[in-house]
């Protein structure tokens, strides 16, 4: 059982390292960073308490929102998905990403208190 899991995972990692274009790997690294930041914030909240609850919420929402937007960007940039996003060029995807982030940051800073 565990053998098959390990073999699946190693196979997946191999495929990932070889077949994914560099651009997507850059975005994946960014996604990993965002996820870790969010997880660490949540850990703090669990351990120490929710004292400035609004600050915790805004930080966590910021991580979650950024993660989602980055995932969207990755999907739209991926050349394998070109068929589904005919009208959206990668530049356009990036511009959307920027704009959405501006709005997200406005809300987050407003809530952080």
């Amino acid at each position, binding site marked *: 059982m565990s053998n098959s899991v390990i073999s699946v995972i190693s196979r997946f990692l191999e495929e990932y390292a070889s077949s994914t274009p560099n651009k997507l790997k850059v975005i994946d*690294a960014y996604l990993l960073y965002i996820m870790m930041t969010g997880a660490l914030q949540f850990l703090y909240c669990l351990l120490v308490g929710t004292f400035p609850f609004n600050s915790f919420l805004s930080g966590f929402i910021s991580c979650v929102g950024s993660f989602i937007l980055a995932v969207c960007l990755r999907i739209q940039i991926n050349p394998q998905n070109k068929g589904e996003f005919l009208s959206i060029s990668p530049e356009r995807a990036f511009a959307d990403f920027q704009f959405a982030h501006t709005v997200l940051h406005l809300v987050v800073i407003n809530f952080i208190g």
Partner: protein
Amino acid sequence: MAHLCLFSLLVLSMVLKTQALTPTHHLTTTDVARLQAVLSQPFTDLKSAYYSVVGLSKLGILVADADETCQFIKSNLDPSSVESLFYAAEASQALSGCEIPVSNDTRDLLLATVSEDSTASQIHQSVSALSSLGLPLASQEVVSALKARISKEDNVLTIILALQTASRLSQQAELGDILEEIEDLAARLDDLSGVYLQFEEGLEATALFVSAAYALSDHVDMEPPLKEDQVIQLVNSIFSKKSWDSLSEAFSVASAAESLSNNRFHVPVIVSAQGPAAISHSQPFLRLQVTDVLCQPLSSASVLVESASTSTSKSAILSQAPFTLREEVFELNFMASQPASGYYQFSVAIAGDSRFVANHVELKVKVSTRVAINNMDLSVVDKDQSIGPKTTRVEYPTKAKASFMADSHQNFAMTFQLVDETTGVELTPHQTFVRLHNQKTGQEVVFVAEPDSKNLYKFELDTTERKTEFDSISGTYALYLMMGDATLENPILWNVADVVLKFLDEETPSTIQAKTLYTPKPEIQHLFREPEKKPPTVVSNAFTALVLSPFLLLLILWFKLGANISNFTLSPCTILFHIGHAAMLGLMYVYWTHLNMFQTMKYLAIIGSLTFLAGNRMLAQKAVKRTK
């Protein structure tokens, strides 16, 4: 059988008899004196002279210096003004021996004013002046002018003036139409909660209406179409105001009062008790003043008590008893019927003149008496009834010589009887209290003594039962009996005896906590909401570092992946885009520290649009480069 019929008829008639109105407001002698004083003020011009002189004559008072007044009138007269002639003519008529010289021009002027084109007040003034000066006038012309005036101006004051004018005309003239106006005008009066009847134009208009209506009715000898209740309501309205704003208002009240006391049809009667309506053995006469609205006594009247009964039962103590007239006051010796003390309802009728209005009055009369205390017995009774009670009799107003002792084994008891001093009938006053007063501590406790079925008052003090009222403080208490009632002439406060009370479980005489109701209370300190416990700074700093650490990881990963900025073109839009982007991030920081949403939106709009334009250009260039 006949008795039953009569009784039922009586009951039915009593139930069906509607309560006639009686005046609630009337002028007292002080009010009449005040009215006279207002009208006696020294006058400044002809108009005020007219009001004063004629007003005082209506109150039946002659002006002091008639000659001086006559001179004043003659010197202030302006023969070319109808108004001036009117005032002078009326005033001189009220003074004796005052003649105003009249010329042909004056007469022509006055006659010319009688026409349809003059106002109602001008017609009234000229007709009155002609009549007072003894000059002839054409009554029929006046009537037609008045009728034309009324049809043009339908307001209240015009019609009142028309009524006044008509009362000065000859009786042969056709005054029927004008007489009908009284009824129409009476319908215009406002009924205020069934008590007052007045014009919305005010008190003066109402008073002038009354005097005009009665003047005209007397002149043609026809009863005015006013019901008795309406007359009383008018009396209430006119005489409710006891101080008058202007001379004309005082004059109108005086003329209304005069017409209501002297006309041929309706004379309202004012009945009031002299002093409080209370009778006792020392004061056995019920005195009533019966006057007209000007407070002049109606000596021709005969006053009769139709029935006098107690407020509770309906049996009549007196029936059809006449009052006797003595020095303008009607009196009746009620004590001669030996009434028991209490309140009685009197129904009084005033007869003697068919013109009397409101001549049935209901009065509430109080009969008071003196009380005597009989058989005051004080005793100390043993609880277990082993030793017989020792009874001491005390006579009012002496005090018992020995003091009484009561502790947990004994009760203290008191019995007495209250009787009417003269008749010996048992009484139950409203307030019978027993008060125990501790002389040392100043404490007092009050109990109520209750009568039993035989009207014998009893009071028992059980020390164990009542120890909370006494705060268990033993000592000598002075016992007082307090008695009072509205119908008692001699309320009683009697120190009957001294009682020594002993309580068990007495607390050590604590400092008497005088009920501290009015001393300052302890101050309340406001507790602000405690701020929440913050974790220690070390922990916070550690976690801040921890949360920022993935950024290092990101940089390392990006370096390993070979991400670089080698494609960075140094075109202006690229640089502008990056600067704008950095500015937006900086704005976010400033928003966190200084700004509010509105300011941020403002700056964001500016920077954002710049960044957008630059970014758009940059990305377009990039796209072109990619597709090339």
